[in-house]
């Protein structure tokens, strides 16, 4: 509090003594900072406004449960296969990436610490989080699709590769926040390290880990590039993990390039569906974080 008062006092002292050009420059800089915020916030508002306005035309419960018209110039609703595909692919990717990521983070924070191998894994996690999503798609194409064909599972593998480094990073950060006292207390009661880790350390860090994982899921749910040549295309829902599938993001990409208004309307409504899904995940993650912070 004292620091703020100092600032305020200094600014009231300034008024008379500071030359006009310095004052003007300060005011211009302050205006520029407000402007910078506006420069990012206005396009965001614009995009959201457009997606909601254009997406509302077609968006309804019907839209979510009707099949995609086979002829793309045909008007009317239908994105059910894409909704099913997005949930299936993202869900599977989560089941693959979260356990692996959390276990990897446990190694880094509980066992590896500052050893060379742990530091190498940290560096490579950073490298992996910088790999473009389209390259992940090419990777899964060459290693999986060429042998076993297009499927939701292949798409899930690609998304899991994108999520893994994010989850390792956020989980490690959360594990680091767990006080050493807890580990020592558990050890003093005679617990083995693994039991301390599973029963004490992980539960203590759980809310943070969950919220980090949900952010990663939200990112992955909107990804298109890794799915383009891994999942294929269907016009009826496929709830199986294998066999061709489709996803909301892939449908938006397809329909955006088609000149028919009907297809474009479906793209806008699919975009609205995807944004709602992603925002809900983000919101849930923030609520969990806020709860955690209050404790």
């Amino acid at each position, binding site marked *: 509090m004292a*620091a703020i008062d100092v*600032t305020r006092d*200094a*600014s009231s002292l300034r008024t008379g003594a*500071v030359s006009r050009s*310095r004052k003007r420059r*300060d005011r*211009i*800089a302050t205006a520029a*900072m*407000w402007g*910078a*915020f506006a420069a*990012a916030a206005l396009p*965001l508002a614009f*995009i959201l406004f457009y*997606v909601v306005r254009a997406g509302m035309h077609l968006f309804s419960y019907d839209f979510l449960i009707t099949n995609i018209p086979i002829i793309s110039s045909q008007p009317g609703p239908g994105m059910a296969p894409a909704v099913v595909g997005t949930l299936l692919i993202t869900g599977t990717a989560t089941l693959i990436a979260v*356990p692996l*990521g959390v*276990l*990897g983070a446990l*190694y*880094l924070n*509980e*066992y590896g610490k500052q050893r060379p191998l742990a530091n190498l*894994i940290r*560096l*490579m996690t950073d490298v992996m989080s*910088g*790999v*473009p999503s*389209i*390259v*992940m798609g*090419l*990777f899964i194409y*060459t*290693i999986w699709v*060429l042998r076993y064909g297009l499927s939701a599972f292949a798409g899930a593998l690609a998304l899991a590769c994108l999520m893994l*480094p994010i989850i390792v990073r956020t989980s490690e950060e959360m594990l680091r926040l767990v006080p050493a006292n807890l580990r020592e207390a558990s050890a003093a009661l005679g617990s*083995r*390290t*693994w*039991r301390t880790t599973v029963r004490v350390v992980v539960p203590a860090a759980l809310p943070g880990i969950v919220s980090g994982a949900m*952010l990663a899921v939200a*990112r992955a*749910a*909107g990804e*298109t*590039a890794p799915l*383009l040549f891994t999942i294929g295309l269907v016009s009826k829902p496929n709830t199986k993990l294998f066999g061709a599938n489709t996803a909301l993001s892939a449908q938006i*990409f397809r329909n*955006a*390039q088609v000149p028919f208004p009907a297809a474009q309307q479906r*793209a*806008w409504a699919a*975009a609205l569906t*995807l944004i709602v899904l*992603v925002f809900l995940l*983000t919101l849930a993650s923030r609520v969990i974080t806020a709860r955690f912070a209050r404790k």
Partner: protein
Amino acid sequence: MNQASLAEQRTGGRIADQAFRLLTLLAGLTILVVLVLIAFTTVNNALPAFRHSGLSFLTSREWIPNEGKFGALPFIYGTAVIAVIAVMLAVPVSVGIALFVTEVAPRRMRSSVVSVMDLLAVIPSVVFGLWGILVLAPSIASVYNSVSDAVEPVPVFTTVFNHTQTGRSYFTAGLILALMITPIITSITREVFATVPRNDKDGALALGATRWEMVKGVVFPHSIGGMVGATMLGLGRAMGETIAVALVIGSTPHIVGNLFASGDAMPAVIANEFGEASGVHRAALIGLGVALFAITVLVNVSARFVVRRIDVRLRGLA
């Protein structure tokens, strides 16, 4: 039964301990394995194209798949151009927002500014692309042409900002990329600005500096390394971004100086052509992926290196 074996039973044995350790180690090693596999399988599948074109894969400016000509230079050029446009637009805005949050914004507004940036960060790339191709591109061509009219007499500008028929161009792609990388650059620079010691800032203000002079004299010198690192991370992100660029860049493989003209970029051409490609064409597209992978890894690793060195230096000071 003696005390020791009882304790052993209750807490799980040494074997369980080692098994768990091994399990976590294996999970950690997956990252290394996946990275090695990415490099190995993509290079392996790109080999036919590298053999077919040799060094001209990277130096030729002709990309005509039907005639078996695979020169990646137009895409490398396009990627570089749009990434530079994006960074030049996004860095001043991001630094401005970071300063806004740390120095200017009323206390109550700070968390909502951060929320807005978080929202911007989770909007899917394909939604930016959809908006770009259906809303932004059709209306922005006339803006480009009036800019072009205005700079007609200036020698260099008239080439760089020349007339155009379409809104799908390098510059449109750069604009959308700038929006997409602003959140990441903002969040890193914000964290760096937050580490500037309160005493230094108060000292500058006490000496009579205006807020802007304090920022120039204290905040920037203290944070320059972190800002460079953030910029490079943004650059890496911009170069790898695929779907939004694929939709708005106009898919024209050539090298022109006019930023308002259609072009193409490495990730965009992979996304647009991979579906119909086969044989050497497909291998060439995977080859583009390999080149993209190499460039982004290089940019990212050097960015982390810069950030970490600054980190160490700051910790040394504290």
